[in-house]
């Protein structure tokens, strides 16, 4: 911890398209927060304190030491807040899966705003909306004009929008990682810019399960079987994204007998989490007897994986190489 006589660091916490689980991740520091607040002044935190946006705008540029931005960039407001905070903060940290990689909201990149609105405001069976009233951006009410943020077709992660200095992944980041990050910040021991504040190793390293030869030919979806608590999920034919995901979360999902879903994103050497999962799972699936497989048998084998995109890019579609589904089809 730093000495009491040093001036407090100014911290801003910005919200994009977020569930606020990342706010909870900070709150979850619990009693440790008292120490944190000894070293840090929170100058902006919409969830937990009362500063107004205008106050943030009035701060001199670069006067905020660190900004944690959580949530993805899904609409105009998210973008504006991100850009504003980037101006005001010296160090911008993408906090949580959505800011780092796009997160679950990133799956909206399989569709467009138009299609989403059509589903939500018209097509669902229980919706009564004969005139198809849907949200619009500009409207006038009693002579006053109102501008609502435009919802983007493409959800972006933070670094597609502004320069990001550090990444703290996880959905949400686990308490030990947040602690370590804050410690590094307050003691001035942050690594080189661009780094991810989590170990650069995959989950298998901290997974306690027993690993055997992954000779899988049959895939089980999580509801189709009761997983053995001791054995590696992949060994049992259950897809686990652990191999393509960073460790640091303490393998909590594994302990709850659920396979990893990849919320910590990939290591620094894997450029595309989904592509790497396809590379590795595609290689070990059907390894036994591969020489005598026909083309059709290979197709059948691989068809067992019902939703490669949703499974392998669950948290990272906006930060992947292709970022979104292409909508211009013949």
């Amino acid at each position, binding site marked *: 911890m730093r000495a009491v006589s040093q001036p407090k660091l100014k911290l801003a916490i910005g919200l994009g398209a977020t569930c606020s689980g990342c706010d909870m991740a900070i709150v979850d520091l619990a009693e440790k927060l008292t120490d944190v607040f000894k070293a840090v002044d929170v100058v902006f935190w919409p969830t937990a304190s009362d500063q107004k946006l205008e106050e943030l705008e009035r701060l001199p540029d670069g006067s905020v030491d660190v900004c944690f931005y959580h949530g993805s960039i899904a609409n105009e407001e998210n973008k504006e807040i991100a850009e504003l905070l980037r101006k005001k903060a010296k160090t911008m940290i993408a906090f949580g899966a959505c800011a780092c990689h796009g997160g679950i909201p990133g799956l909206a990149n*399989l569709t467009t705003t138009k299609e989403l609105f059509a589903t939500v405001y018209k097509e669902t069976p229980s919706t009564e909306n004969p005139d198809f009233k849907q949200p619009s951006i500009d409207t006038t009410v009693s002579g006053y004009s109102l501008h609502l943020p435009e919802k983007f077709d493409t959800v972006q992660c933070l670094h597609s929008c502004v320069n990001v200095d550090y990444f703290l992944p996880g959905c949400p980041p686990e308490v030990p990682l947040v602690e370590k990050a804050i410690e590094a910040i307050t003691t001035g021991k942050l690594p080189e810019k661009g780094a991810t504040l989590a170990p650069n190793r995959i989950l298998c390293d901290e997974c306690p399960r027993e690993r055997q030869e992954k000779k899988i030919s049959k895939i089980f979806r999580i509801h189709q079987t009761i997983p053995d608590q001791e054995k590696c999920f992949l060994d049992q034919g259950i897809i686990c994204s652990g191999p393509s995901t960073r460790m640091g979360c303490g393998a909590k999902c594994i302990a709850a007998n659920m396979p990893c879903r990849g919320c910590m994103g990939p290591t620094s050497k*894997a*450029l*595309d989490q*989904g*592509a*790497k999962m*396809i*590379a590795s*799972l*595609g*290689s070990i*699936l*059907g390894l036994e007897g*591969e*020489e*005598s*497989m026909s*083309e059709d048998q*290979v*197709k059948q*084998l*691989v*068809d067992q*994986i019902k*939703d*490669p*995109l*949703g499974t*392998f890019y669950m948290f990272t579609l906006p930060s*992947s*190489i*292709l970022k*979104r*589904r*292409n*909508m*211009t*089809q*013949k």
Partner: protein
Amino acid sequence: MTEMADRFEPQILGFLCNWCSYAGADLAGTSRTQYSPNIRIIRVMCSGRVDPTFVLLALKNGADGVLIAGCHPPSDCHYLTGNLKARRRYHLLLKLLDQLGIERQRVRLEWISASEGEKFARVVNEFTEQIRALGPNPLKAS
């Protein structure tokens, strides 16, 4: 002449394995077998070296089509079974492309041996025309 200039010329990126398909492409050369000038070739030691990441990067960088060429299964692979891994990854990658709204015909896996110079030329010609009909890589517009 103007019509020719306006015609869409596909840009195809090929990953050719050193022992079979790259040698086959060389053979097409020594035999002076002419083919469409639409392919750019990257040599890898084995088709099993091709990471699906490479294919996605190729598409992102504007390739209208991607060709992966290796040795004939089941037993021609110089490294024994690399081509079999390439095959399984390829079929899984195609499913991903379907979900990403990219025509699966843009990524093609072919088995071309060191003595199949004619086949290499034929594949390049066919693939070029197939991509020409599909049109440019939809990602290029954005």
